[in-house]
């Protein structure tokens, strides 16, 4: 009995430590964003200080913030929609259709995911600039984000599609559905949890990605992560403002995740076929 109590205490202790590791940087970001520069560089640490919104006011006074924010939203949402649309169809084909090289394609999609974006920077910049003239456009950023996210989305959706009983698709075919109707009316509603998980993943990557966006955008098309880096200048590092904008840009992915995670429910195919 005693050892069981100790075990419970140890278990919760571990959870608290893990929670602190996760929350620590966020708390630090939040408190720093509410401090003045002098307070930030004050060596004596204190939990209690007079919060100020000075940093937020300074961030909001920048008239380019709205444009950068909308760039990020456009890039994030459009690349998510395109990735999911292409990804679910590709995953369906890989799961359900028998064709030559199917397994090879299935594995190579995941291999592509293992290439770090930093490796892609130079070749992508060259191709986007000299072959496609896509640098400094949102289209160029969207395309590379779609390419970056597609392998993982295909991979994750494959496992969801495999769980849809083939008998359901046969029933739909017997009911007079063409292949597109089978896919959109029967398969797609049943892989909603997979689409939601993939959407969260895709949007978060596209929203946060820095290095490719830095190289591929200019002052008009730059996204929020690039904007943050501009607070580091040769004279100064505006920690307060960096933390303020950091807090702000954490909000849209949070909202997106909460909305999308409502779709992640289990047992969607319950009752379809005899288990």
């Amino acid at each position, binding site marked *: 009995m005693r050892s069981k109590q100790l075990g419970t205490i140890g278990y919760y202790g571990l959870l608290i430590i893990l929670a602190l590791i996760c929350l620590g940087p966020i708390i630090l970001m939040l408190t720093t964003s509410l401090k003045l520069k002098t307070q930030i560089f004050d060596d004596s640490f204190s939990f209690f200080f007079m919060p100020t919104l000075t940093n937020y006011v300074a961030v909001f006074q920048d008239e380019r913030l709205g444009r950068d924010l909308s760039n990020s939203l456009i890039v994030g949402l459009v690349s998510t929609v395109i990735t999911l649309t292409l990804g679910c169809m590709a995953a369906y084909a890989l799961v359900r259709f028998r064709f030559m090289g199917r397994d090879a394609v299935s594995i190579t999609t995941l291999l592509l995911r293992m290439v770090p974006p930093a490796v892609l920077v130079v070749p992508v910049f060259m191709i986007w600039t000299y072959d496609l003239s896509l640098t400094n456009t949102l289209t160029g950023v969207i395309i590379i984000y779609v390419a970056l996210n597609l392998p993982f989305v295909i991979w994750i959706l494959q496992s969801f599609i495999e769980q849809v*009983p083939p*008998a*359901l698709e*046969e*029933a*739909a*075919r*017997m*009911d*007079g*559905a*063409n292949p597109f*109707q089978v896919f959109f*009316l*029967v398969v797609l*509603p*049943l892989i909603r949890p997979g689409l939601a998980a993939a959407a969260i993943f895709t949007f978060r990557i596209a929203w946060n990605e820095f290095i490719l966006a830095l190289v591929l955008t200019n002052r008009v098309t730059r996204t929020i992560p690039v904007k943050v880096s501009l607070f580091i200048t040769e004279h100064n590092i505006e920690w307060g403002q960096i933390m303020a904008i950091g807090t702000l840009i954490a909000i849209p992915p949070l909202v997106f995740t909460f909305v999308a995670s409502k779709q992640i429910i289990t*047992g*969607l*195919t*319950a*009752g*379809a*076929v*005899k288990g």
Partner: protein
Amino acid sequence: MERAPRGRVGASPAATFHIDPGRTDTFVRGDRSVAQIVLQEIVKQYGSLTVIDHLNLTMEDNEFTVLVGPSGCGKSTTLRMVAGLEDVTEGEIFIDGKAVTHLDPKDRDVAMVFQDYALYPHMNVARNMSFALRLAHYPKAEIDKRVREVAGTLGIEDLLHRKPRELSGGQRQRVAMGRALVRDASTFLFDEPLSNLDAKLRTQMRAELALMRQRLNKNMIYVTHDQVEAMTLGDRIVVMHEGYIQQQGSPEELFKRPANKFVAGFIGSPAMNFLDGQVSEEGGHPMVKGAGFSFRLPETRREALAGRGNPKVTVGIRPSVFVPAEEGADAVNLIRLPALVSEYIGAHSVLIADCGGTQVTVEIDSETPIAVGQELSFTIDPGTIHLFDTESEESI
């Protein structure tokens, strides 16, 4: 209600139709009535494995055909080829005189009930049932009317707004049937629809299916491995084994005149007893004898037995033909069997008895349970004895 004509039995149904030279897509039967579903020289291969080998089958207009056989006999594959869910390697399929071999399922005007229900889990019962009609752009009022009508006949009106996961197995099966019925298709296909239900529910649904098939005059093909379902539902039963049709005909024909040992053993419950025997001539009568038995055969058998060189045969006796004998009855067709196991089921008993070292099943009416070890005497009507060739297993 007028019943569809019972199917004629024929060794090769392909012989009963010919192709009209003017129209390659239409079959005209010898009696000028158009067969509704014709499978002609169907071959199905998976790679080098042949699962159906040159199958010919003709189903009459509005006939309830049951494909029955053990698992792996090709019955479900045959059904799925008619549905259009499986490609046909060779041969042609005609429905309503129209060649449908290479048509999509949606263009064949067939509805199907699946073994494991296959209900759309994200739609409620009403939407499950109306899915096909919605795809075909029926007016909403018409869809509602049809769904309500069919739900009424199936007793599921109260469930229309439930999701499949909120239904019991029996209710799901009804919805699956309802989904096929609202379509008013020319042909209905059933792929072992009752095999996932418990015994009591299965009996009840079987009775309802029998009622339904009388009400609907449609082509129906029903696949099952349960010979009781086949016997009770079918106008025509097609017994399949290892990709070949063993025999087809009415339930009565299959039960009384099985074409071979496989059909004889498969149709009828409890299964037919098989004993090794030898035919001979004794006192001017054809006889069959074996370990523990000696039966006089009817004179009508003489001709069939005459041309055979080999006297060895397999004797088939149904458990239900054993008649308890009075002491001192005709000694020739008398058989004495010590009971090994007795299963008392109330109205009748099923005995397992020993006949010269072979176990035989005997079904008798019984008021009182029978003690194990008790020796019982039975007589057997010679006309009910089946004989099969020991090698070809064909009926003699």
